[in-house]
């Protein structure tokens, strides 16, 4: 087995793929809440991806990737035996593991995979762990079984009501609260608006919220400052100070604006990629 080699590939649904990658040094040192930077080709972007699992004994790490732009689409076209060009990490500050009492882990979409290792390590630390999983529709809801097996309670919510309760994760959280569930701390990973509104609701319900931020990153090692976010009025670098921050006072609107900066160019890049992929050459020259 070679470094960066994909040893296992599992298609979880149309757009989400799970990869197990051989990378012993990271497998040995990874902790919950950290991420890796992946590159797929020469000239390719450095893409931050949360570590979902790691196995020091096998020397492998697990990531779960949703194809959104060009780079993630390229990654998800990789097959077992292919190699990522670069895998760097583990990056970022791990979440603080202790017994908080009752903890809610809230995952939206592919964020469910990203919050999974946090749920596991908090369970091991003696917390009562409640999982709230949200997705647009049933097909996009991943890792439900793993969460059910791990957590003390798991609630699913889909926007269209195709699975679990109909509504958002905030509706599920409110429901748990109304049913008398006393939650101390929350860890939220998902789309920015979902993290924003869940953080607000948690704060209102007396739960201390934390959110894992996903700003644009370049090096991911604290060098470029592209990922700066405002937390409690202070500028922090998500790549080294985070990505998980207490989220009561995060300036989510600023994060939304800063992550939108390259959207038209990202779209152009993805369209080029899809055109190349779909192009079946009829010229007969190659």
């Amino acid at each position, binding site marked *: 087995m070679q470094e960066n080699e994909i040893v296992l590939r599992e298609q979880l649904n149309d757009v989400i793929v799970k990869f197990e990658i051989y990378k012993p040094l990271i497998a040995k040192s990874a902790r919950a809440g950290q991420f890796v930077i992946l590159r797929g080709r020469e*000239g390719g972007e450095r893409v931050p991806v949360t570590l979902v699992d790691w196995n020091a004994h096998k020397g492998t790490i697990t990531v779960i990737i949703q194809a959104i732009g060009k780079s993630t689409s390229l990654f998800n076209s990789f097959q077992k035996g292919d190699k990522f060009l670069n895998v760097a990490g583990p990056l970022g500050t791990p979440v603080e593991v202790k017994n908080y009492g009752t903890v809610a882990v809230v995952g939206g979409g592919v964020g469910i995979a990203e919050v999974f290792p946090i749920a596991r390590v908090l369970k091991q630390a003696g917390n009562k762990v409640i999982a709230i999983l949200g997705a647009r529709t049933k097909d996009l809801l991943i890792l439900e079984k793993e969460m059910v097996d791990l957590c003390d309670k798991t609630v699913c919510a889909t926007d269209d009501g195709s699975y679990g309760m109909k509504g958002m994760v905030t509706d599920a959280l409110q429901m748990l609260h109304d049913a008398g569930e006393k939650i101390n701390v929350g860890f939220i990973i998902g789309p920015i608006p979902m993290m924003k509104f869940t953080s607000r609701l948690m704060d209102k319900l007396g739960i201390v919220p934390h959110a894992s931020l996903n700003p644009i990153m370049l090096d991911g*090692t604290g*060098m470029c*400052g592209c990922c700066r976010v405002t937390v409690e009025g202070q500028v922090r670098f998500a790549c080294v100070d985070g990505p998980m921050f207490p989220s009561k006072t995060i300036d989510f609107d600023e994060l939304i*604006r800063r992550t939108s*900066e*390259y959207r038209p160019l990202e779209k152009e890049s993805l369209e080029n990629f899809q055109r190349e992929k779909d192009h079946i050459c009829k010229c007969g020259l190659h």
Partner: protein
Amino acid sequence: MPNPSAPRNNGYQQAPDVRKHNFEEVAHTFTDEQAHNEAERCLHCKNARCQANCPVGVQIPDFIAYVKGGNIGAAVSKIMETSLLPAICGRVCPQEKHCEGNCVLKDKFGAVNIGMLERYTADTARKQGLLKAPKTAPKTGKKVVCIGSGPSSIAAAAELARAGHDVTVFEALHAFGGVLRYGIPSFRLPREVIDHEIETVKAMGVKFIPDVLVGATQTVKELLAQFDAVYVGSGAGLPTMTGIPGENGVGVYSANEFLTRINLMQAYKFPQTDTPIKIGQQVVVLGAGNSAMDAARSAMRLEPQSVTVCYRRSAAEMPARAAEVEHAKEEGVGFEFLLTPKEILTDENGRVKGIKFTRNELGAPDEKGRRRPVEIPGSEFVKEADTVIVAIGQRPNPVIAKTTPDLKTTSRGVVEMDEQGKTSIPGVYAGGDIIRGGATVLLAMKDGIEAAKRIHAYLGGK
């Protein structure tokens, strides 16, 4: 016969209105004739002040004598006795502060163009296959790891390999060269020059490993269990921001981000490469050091309407090399002095629309002897801008210090050294910007070479 009174030859340069549209190198390497003529100007002083003032002690009159005689192989070997990166040094060393600044011809006829001669020697030797990796001493069996692959670490690695040690270089990024790769633009230092110099060091047996962020992937303590000594050359990779309101606006870059997008990620080739970059029409660069010049000149090449460097002191206090400032001006970069930024103004979408400045006058000198800017009351005004690049300095990257509690650092994150150049951990040495907080490529290399000698002695070598 030496011909010192001949005019100093600066070689050919791309014309400013051509080069500001491309990322190709500004200056061309000397032709053989230009090199010969420039070499003829050298007086070969017995007590050569140029050599005495070279941070890495290049034997300047001797190598120039070989150039004059047309023996490029001997010339490059002479340089490489003390400096293994001649093509890089010839390009980015501030010669006007070191060798050329001390040339006896400087005031009367203009200093010998030592930088261009070094560069010619390295480039020509490379092209003709005369540049060979230096011989290494018999294997010592000792293992040394260098953290980072910037100029300091590469210099240390090469010297340690020359002394016979088994050397590994860990780089956090995907490409090698550190600040040479992510900071210095290709129009000053072509990417293939970095590649070639690293190939030379690889040919000496040094192993280069990417994607290892020491402090995260492996700790210094873990490295000490696998290696006999550690050299920390991880540089000053933490950007300093101004801290003024609006700095997180859309369209505000740190110089590190802006230059990393362009240099490391090659964003100016988007969509052939995947990392994009955006430039507005009115670009303002805050700061006037070498990174500020690199950022301003790179910005110019992305073709905005204007690029303006705004500096809080006057032209005389600019920290950038004079030649870089001159190049920037030729390319159309504007300069405005005695301005302190107070706020970055943004529109309803959070996008930069201007900078609020106050005007300064120069007051008493500070501890470095530079006159301090003093704000003029009531001088506030707004300058329009849609891209702002903050280039006011860098500090050491804190990742290693944070994960190595025994490693003593100052409040600014600079690794502390004793008189023998040792850190607070036995077997761990450091140099370059991690101990200087932000200096030059050549001083970083000097630290690397000196640390290599100390490590060699620590490992029982002579």
